[in-house]
């Protein structure tokens, strides 16, 4: 299996290397800019200072939004896991009429323009008098993150031979006992990966949040967006760097827990 690229290997590797640079440079750049000891963002960065990080951590807009986003995304990920796990089991372990239709419906937020979902929800919530921004945002975010949990949990279930579950049932275990002792341990990695993807997707969501936030509840991406247009010192790069580091930690966690390739497949 080692290196099956044949004689064309060198140009392909070279191209892959250059494209990797294209992917990585914009992620490393904010880190370089954030330590610049200048009143404005400049390239190449000059000097070295961590004062922008100190300044940013004292910025109320940023810390409030960060706290709010952490709460929002945790709730959304939890909701997606609670709603997505039985869905994945139903879709992979049972045959029933309408199953393909329901699978398409549940996965549709992955391609349906979430900008439009956001508009529809904004109208809907105001027409039923639901004005709590946190509740509205959690509902909107669960809607767009459920597919990730369904995907990763389904992937774990597909790899688990149903014969093992059947064996447990034949030996007299109840449905619930079978689930708890046989199925559950097998789907935990998929569930964790799905939960992390749900969290990150919610944490980065802009298209739903831009319609459902209010003055007291502003998710972090929206604060970032408005800071970009009114803040020109390296503090904005420091915020960007903090968010990049947080995401990288999560990537490495997923890679350790399930293996990224597995988590992203299907």
């Amino acid at each position, binding site marked *: 299996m080692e290196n099956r690229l044949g004689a064309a290997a060198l140009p392909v590797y070279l191209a892959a290397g250059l494209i990797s640079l294209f992917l990585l440079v914009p992620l490393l750049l904010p880190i370089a800019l954030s330590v610049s000891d200048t009143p404005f963002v400049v390239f190449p960065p000059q000097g070295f200072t961590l004062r922008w990080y100190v300044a940013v951590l004292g910025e109320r807009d940023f810390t409030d939004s960060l706290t709010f986003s952490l709460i929002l995304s945790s709730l959304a990920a939890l909701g997606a896991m609670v709603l997505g796990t039985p869905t994945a089991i139903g879709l992979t372990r*049972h*045959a029933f009429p309408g199953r393909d239709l329901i699978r398409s419906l549940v996965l549709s937020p992955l391609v349906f323009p979430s900008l439009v979902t956001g508009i529809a929800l904004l109208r809907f919530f105001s027409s039923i008098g639901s004005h709590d921004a946190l509740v509205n945002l959690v509902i909107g975010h*669960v809607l767009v993150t459920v597919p990730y949990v369904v995907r990763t949990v389904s992937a774990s279930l597909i790899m688990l031979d149903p014969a093992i579950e059947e064996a447990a049932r034949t030996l007299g275990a109840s449905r619930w006992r079978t689930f708890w002792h046989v199925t559950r341990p097998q789907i935990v990695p998929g569930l964790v990966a799905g939960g992390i993807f749900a969290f990150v997707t919610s944490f980065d969501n802009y298209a739903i949040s831009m319609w459902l936030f209010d003055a007291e509840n502003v998710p972090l991406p929206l604060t*970032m967006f408005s800071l970009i247009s009114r803040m020109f010192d390296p503090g904005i790069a420091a915020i960007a760097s903090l968010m990049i580091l947080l995401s990288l930690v999560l990537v490495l966690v997923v890679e350790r827990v399930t293996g990224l390739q597995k988590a992203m497949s299907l």
Partner: protein
Amino acid sequence: MSITDRRTDLGSPWRRLAGALRGAGDGLAGWGLVAPVVLFFAVVFLVPVGLMVRWGFYRQLDTGALSDGFTFANYIRLFSVDLYRKATWTTLEISVLTTVVSALLAYPLALVMARGPALIGRILTVVVIAPMLINVVVRAYAWRVILANGDQGIVNWLLAQIGLGPVHLLYTEWAIVIGSVHVFLSTMVLPIAAALGRIDPAVEDAARTLGASSFAVFRRVTFPLSLPGLAVGSTLVFSLTASAFVAPALLGGNFVKMLGPLVQEQILSVFDWPFGAALATLLVVLVMGVNLASVGLIERRLQRKMKGAR
């Protein structure tokens, strides 16, 4: 228990009934498991989106109230006013360009991920997926710094080092394309890499043994077999680019208008809900149309292949 056992032994009609009942029980359990999600999607997805589509057929009166009944006025305005026609066209153009560029860049990465040494494959997977998890606003910010016009931009700084004049990049269609490719490249690479991974190496070996050059093997064997992955990736990238808001807003500014920012403007600044709803509906039709067409294409191909196999 014993009674049913004896009954099932009585003959095939009973057995079939028992089988059907068991099947029905299984189906019932399946429905029970998916019922919560179906209810949730019906209430906060299907109904709100349906209502929004209906809004596109109302009209906003000058008093701010809404007209009764059913009118195509919003759609007539959408297709007759230059600004909106142009935004639709720009959206299509940028989405197609982004899809094509992503596909071109995706193959080398996917080939190395699927065929290269295991360690390099793992590293590349992290490199490809890491940007996916980084906020779109952060990435658009980085691209603003890289592409900035005048002497502040990094591209222009690099060009100046080798004595080339400044180029105008930020707030052009290409700025949006570059930013969008960066945002969605992973979405293209993963399905292609998965499709490449499913190809039986023996097929390529056979072609090579029969004297095909590396390029011929790729063009005649590997590439055609990876088409399902390319179709999935292209559909996703097109859909996501067409309905994006952040990248067009931060990289295109007021100079290049796509449908996403236009919808936002109509609803949050102009407060013309019915027209905003019509624009949003157009976006949905565009995106879902491409999705359905692509699914249809893949299925037709699969059917043809199955007929060919028989």
